[in-house]
């Protein structure tokens, strides 16, 4: 408190004093305003721009799209909205197939992550204090290492001349290498491999807060393990299942690196189409329309995630 008074004395000029005083009274507003403005400019505004460009026409110039607002010769403002890009997406069966394929691959990968992640989270929660710390660290560690390099690791394992094929041939199980790289199978492996920690961690956080004596009570009252699991454990861990599933499903749907490196040209996923439309074809309006359409597909799961997240925050 003292040094604040001192600084106030030091600042002699009226302006400085006024700024300091307004800082002292308005600091709360400032704390809110700085990150808020950042997000408005760099997170929200870009979406409006994407929306705008998605209703423009592609032209060969820089930037390669027509302005939405143009001035006619008599000075009247013209607003041009072109929905051709969305019509193009709608008419071309390739896009519909790609969206469907992305959602299916992401959905099935989410189920696989759940099947692997749920027992692991359960085992971590129920293990002893030291084992718990070690296991948690083992789950978190890959998350800190490069995502790209972890996907690359699977290229070496799955390639025709790769480790798995070499091993199977050496063991005499197969004569010819099986093609695994550049297939949908490889994409599943890649997604489950890189996203399973995102499933385990929310599940762990949820399970750790549970009242495990309920399970003992159920067992004491004669419930079978399966009954206990279905009537107590599963409903209680549902918030963790939902959070983990959404954390896997949403980013996996728009995944680019995994389908590109492990799926090659054989696996259609929307993230890859968007990237290629933008970089290879330089068709920004279509790329923007693809992005908006992807956002429309994901808006329900995203709002669900937000809903459960704020409910979880409210509970603590």
């Amino acid at each position: 408190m003292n040094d604040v008074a001192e600084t106030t004395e030091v600042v002699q000029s009226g302006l400085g004093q006024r700024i300091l005083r307004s800082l002292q009274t308005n600091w709360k507003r400032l704390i809110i305003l700085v990150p808020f403005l950042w997000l408005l400019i760099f997170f929200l505004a870009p979406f409006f721009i994407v929306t705008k460009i998605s209703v423009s026409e592609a032209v060969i110039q820089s930037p390669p799209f027509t302005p939405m607002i143009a001035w006619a010769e008599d000075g009247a403002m013209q607003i041009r909205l072109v929905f051709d890009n969305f019509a193009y997406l709608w008419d071309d069966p390739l896009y519909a197939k790609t969206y469907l394929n992305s959602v299916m691959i992401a959905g099935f990968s989410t189920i696989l992550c759940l099947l692997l992640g749920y027992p692991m989270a359960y085992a971590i929660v129920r293990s002893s204090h030291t084992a718990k710390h070690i296991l948690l660290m083992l789950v978190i560690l890959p998350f800190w290492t490069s995502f790209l390099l972890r996907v690359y690791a699977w290229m070496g394992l799955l390639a025709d001349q790769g480790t798995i094929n070499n091993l199977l041939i050496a063991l005499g199980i197969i004569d010819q290498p099986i093609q695994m790289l550049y297939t949908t199978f490889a994409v599943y492996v890649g997604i489950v491999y890189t996203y399973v920690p995102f499933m385990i961690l929310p599940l762990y956080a949820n399970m750790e807060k549970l009242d495990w004596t309920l399970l003992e009570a159920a067992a004491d009252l004669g419930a079978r393990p399966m009954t206990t699991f279905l009537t107590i454990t599963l409903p209680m861990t549902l918030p963790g299942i939902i959070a983990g599933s959404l954390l896997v499903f949403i980013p996996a749907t728009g995944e680019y690196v995994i389908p590109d490196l492990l799926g090659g040209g054989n696996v259609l996923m929307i993230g890859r189409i968007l990237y290629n439309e933008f970089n290879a074809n330089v068709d920004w309006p279509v790329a923007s329309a693809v992005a908006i359409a992807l956002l429309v597909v994901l808006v329900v799961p995203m709002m669900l995630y937000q809903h459960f997240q704020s409910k979880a925050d409210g509970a603590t």
Partner: protein
Amino acid sequence: MSNGKRSYFLITTTCFGIAFLYIPMLMLIIYSFNESRIVPVWGGFSTKWYGVLFESEEIWEALTLSFKIATVNACFATVLGTLAGLALVRFGRFKGRTLFNGMISAPLVMPEVITGLSLLLLFITLKEFIGWPDQRGFTTITIAHITFSMAYVAVIIQSRLSGMAQDLEEAAQDLGAKPLRVLIDITLPLLAPGMVAGWLLAFTLSLDDLVIASFVTGPGAVTLPILIYSRVRLGLRPDINALATIIILVVAIGVLIAAWIMFRQQRQRELELKMTSEEV
């Protein structure tokens, strides 16, 4: 009895899961010491690919750029994320809170291709109207990284704040400290471990990002993931295995040290709390 059977299943699954997570990385490391140019064909032990790696100027340049971006990003993201976390947990209701909350948690699940595309289009639009950013590269990648990293920092800070007992802050307030004093002298020091964790996370996220950076980068600005990607797209490369080995080892050592420090701090704090409660 059934308990024993179930834990057998749990142990098997967990072992399988851990093996699944670590065998690919282990293979990556083993093949970095392969003499042969063709990655999966073992041609004897050799460290020559590390030599190839260290001689590559491209790699050093990309690494320097990535570290610069990651450092600046982590500092800004920690400040902005901490402010956002404070605002959301401690300031009650305010105008635009719902929008704020939505904007801070959306980057966590937003597909990278969408974030990357939309930020690039923002930068291009800004350049048209105000002439900035003049060229894309360091600045635009850093801004893009701050935008999604601050969301992760905010999540960490939010969970710290809501799990933190408010008695120290209340005591200071009862003794006549103004709210801003309480924030600076009590709340922020208590948040320090969370801020360190947030800084480290933001740093790693930035070092790791390929998709967003490839969208918002310009000619000449090649980050490490962009360089790695352009090489591995064409196939397996032993020098990338060597690079991966170094990255995995550095991260593993870093995480171990961080975990050890946090573990010690936590134990110390528990001890102190115990002592103070005994004194009372």
